[in-house]
């Protein structure tokens, strides 16, 4: 058979139609661009189980797929979300919760009290606040399909606060089947009753995570405020795009290929400022807090004077300026609970008013009896603010008389080494830098880093009996005023024994392209209430 020109053209057209066919089929199920939000968030979504990890990206994912029993309003007060009504017994030990009507998982099955109890128990095994609560828990009886109780051994004022908190780990409600998974093992099925459904078929691991509007979701009637109120979804699809290169992400939003960057590179913000469709907006008004942990197990920081010396030598403004440039995006932090949180206070902050004071740091270091041994400072070079903080603080430490050994690696190596309890010259460490959401610091009990329970605690292993007693007292307080007073006592004591240090608080703006209604809050980017165009 000879190939004629006509036959060749026919063959070409047939091949083209064949290749294009799947696209045609897909086009029928892919929502239009104007009904799709493509967002570049602060990192890759590596783990899908919000109980297995404390990573914020996982909490963002879970906030789409799962719902919570309680949310919080803009005053951080708990408000019923999946719950319709609840009550506390006269002896203040028994909480009774009733679920609202119409709650369904995305597979169509109704949400029951059994699902809630199993989810609370799994969360309680992992979360700091949850563990604190579970240690005082007597029982969680299920009364009927929609009603369950949490019975405490003693009056405990934080049950609803813990269920409502947005800081990781969040108490998201899963099906009983998944919630019965060992908390140290990742769940394998992602089915929730939240405003979106995870579209696993459209996911490209490490690149793109797709969420479609949940047709089974019934939002509350109240207006959406933070995680409380009606989670009304105004788009058909949200895509988390993981664009690793910051300059590419900036170019993509300028070209209209994406609609949002959670944390655009601050050095490139000027290129966005002139774009008429793009606005820069600080969504997390509390911001992030940079903190330095010192190792209590080894000299010199097993001595309080050496730790106090560190308190006097850090100059937060300089550290922040090195990374964030414009002063409107950062501030110093003198409160143990972060600035702008309900527990913020000004107890025992004289050191902050005079810092940096290298002479004072020198004097305190001398009083500590420091023998000049190398002080190992871990420097994560792949994260700009940690890298800059390590460089600057190491220099100030040298000026104060520390013999600093700055050890550069990537963040992955830092998280491994910080767990080593051996002496710094045997693979251990003396100082490392990290950061967290200020919202998490506002709670003295749920943040693992606020504990001072020695080697059982978080890396750095601070130890202070009074601090632990005060944390317990705070958890047992019945009123906000009482909690605030105890928070002052905690801070008064903490800045004397110095469990850790802060090197600045920052508020990085998000870049939004033609998006309105995005609720600004810490720890979560809520994609309900958002309109595009």
């Amino acid at each position, binding site marked *: 058979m000879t190939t004629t020109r006509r036959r060749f053209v026919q063959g070409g057209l047939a091949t083209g139609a064949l290749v294009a066919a799947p696209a045609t089929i897909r086009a029928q199920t892919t929502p239009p661009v104007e009904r799709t939000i493509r967002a570049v968030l602060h990192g890759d979504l590596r783990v899908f189980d919000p109980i297995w990890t*404390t990573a914020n990206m996982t909490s963002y994912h879970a906030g789409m797929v799962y719902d919570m029993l309680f949310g919080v309003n803009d005053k951080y007060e708990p408000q019923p979300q999946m719950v319709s009504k609840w009550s506390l017994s006269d002896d203040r030990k028994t909480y009774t919760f009733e679920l609202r009507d119409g709650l369904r998982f995305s597979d169509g099955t109704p949400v029951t009290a059994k699902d809630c109890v199993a989810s609370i128990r799994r969360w309680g095994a992992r979360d700091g606040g949850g563990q604190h609560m579970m240690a005082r828990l007597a029982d969680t009886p299920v009364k009927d399909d929609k009603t369950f109780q949490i019975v405490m051994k003693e009056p405990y004022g934080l049950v609803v606060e813990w269920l409502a908190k947005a800081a990781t780990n969040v108490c998201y409600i899963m099906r009983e089947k998944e919630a019965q998974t060992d908390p*140290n093992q990742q769940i394998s099925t992602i089915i929730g009753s939240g405003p979106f459904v995870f579209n696993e078929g459209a996911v490209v691991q490490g690149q793109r995570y797709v969420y479609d509007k949940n047709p089974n979701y019934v939002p509350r009637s109240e207006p959406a405020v933070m995680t409380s109120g009606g989670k009304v979804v105004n788009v058909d699809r949200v895509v988390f795009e993981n664009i690793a290169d910051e300059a590419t992400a900036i170019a993509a939003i300028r070209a209209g290929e994406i609609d949002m960057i959670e944390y655009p590179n601050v050095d490139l913000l000027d290129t966005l400022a002139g774009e008429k469709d793009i606005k820069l907006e600080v969504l997390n008004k509390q911001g992030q807090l940079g903190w330095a942990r010192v190792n209590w197990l080894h000299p010199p920081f097993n001595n309080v004077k050496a730790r106090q010396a560190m308190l006097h030598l850090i100059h937060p403004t300089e550290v922040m300026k090195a990374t964030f440039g414009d002063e409107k995006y950062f501030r110093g932090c003198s409160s143990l609970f972060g600035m702008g949180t309900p527990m913020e206070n000004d107890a025992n902050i004289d050191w902050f008013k005079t810092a940096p004071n290298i002479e004072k740091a020198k004097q305190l270091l001398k009083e500590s009896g420091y023998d000049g041994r190398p002080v190992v400072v871990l420097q994560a070079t792949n994260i700009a603010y940690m890298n800059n903080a390590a460089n600057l603080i190491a220099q100030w430490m040298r000026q104060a008389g520390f013999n600093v050994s700055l050890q550069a690696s990537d963040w*992955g190596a830092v998280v491994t080494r910080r*767990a080593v309890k051996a002496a710094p010259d045997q693979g251990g460490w003396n100082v490392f830098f990290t950061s967290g959401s200020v919202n998490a610091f506002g709670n003295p009990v749920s943040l693992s880093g606020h504990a001072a329970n020695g080697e059982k605690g978080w890396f750095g292993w601070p130890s202070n009996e009074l601090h632990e007693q005060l944390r317990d007292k705070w958890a047992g307080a019945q009123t906000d005023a009482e909690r605030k007073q105890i928070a002052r006592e905690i801070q008064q004591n903490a800045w004397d024994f110095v469990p850790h240090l802060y090197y600045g608080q920052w508020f990085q703006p998000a870049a939004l392209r033609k998006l309105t209604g995005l609720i600004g809050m810490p720890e979560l980017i809520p994609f309900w209430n958002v309109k595009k165009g």
Partner: protein
Amino acid sequence: MLSYLAQRLVSTILVMTLVGIFVFLLLHLSAGDPAAIIAGDYATPQQIVAIRQRLGLDDPLLVQFGRWALRVIQGDLGVSIFSSTPVSALILQRLEPTLSLALLTMLFAVTIAVTFGVLAAWKAGRPIDRLLMGFSVLGFSMPTFVVGYGLIYIFAIELRWLPVQGYRALADGIGPWFLHLVLPTVTLGLAYVALIARMTRASMQEVLEEDYIRTANAKGVPARTMLMKHALKNAGVPIITVIGIGVALLIGGVVITETVFNIPGVGRLVVDAISKRDYPIIQGVILIFSGVYVLINLAVDLSYSLIDPRIRH
């Protein structure tokens, strides 16, 4: 020929075994703990230990290696520590973008470079030769990310002719697939254009001085026939060698290009896996790439005898 082929295949398996042992040891002896990364920043040391135990990362190194090697022999590259997805599925998902980019890049590079090289050799010492070789030096000297950002700025942001980033599967249609690959291909290909063009010019110049070319010229053979049929074929072996090396180097080159243009390829997969210490992915990708590398070299060696019948294996 057959025994040569068998020998090379056996050596490929040997190389992959050695690479497997080396990569496994390198990864497990270097700093980094996936359990700590999985657990997140607020996790307590106890929670990290529990995850490590659950993932079997606390087992002796030999046990972990044995477990992995046994799976690999059975054709199972394991599952991602983070997402629990099979590594082979993750690689397969990323193969199309990487292969598309690599093939288009080589097609672009070889077409342009051989044309440039032949032209420059033919017009050696003239302005066109200097211009083309100057362009080659430029292409070779400019870092990939500089070229990439420059092209994005001009063609995607200012002119809006092409997309900034991303990849469209072939199944979405050839048009979108091609448009998304134009800028990455040019970015990645420029260095190879320079490399291959310079080698083609040098090789062609040598051949153009041969007696049989002078004879062909004297007989009045048209320039095009003389260059393409007589000279280029005889100058082919070193050019094929450089192209082969280029293909192998491309495996490394795609990593930066895939990052700059946000292409979900194998290069990005392995870089992301390294940052989070997802050992099975890193081991799987490197193992497969080492096999591909050896097979490309084998293909280049075999192609010599097709171009030059005097070469026999």
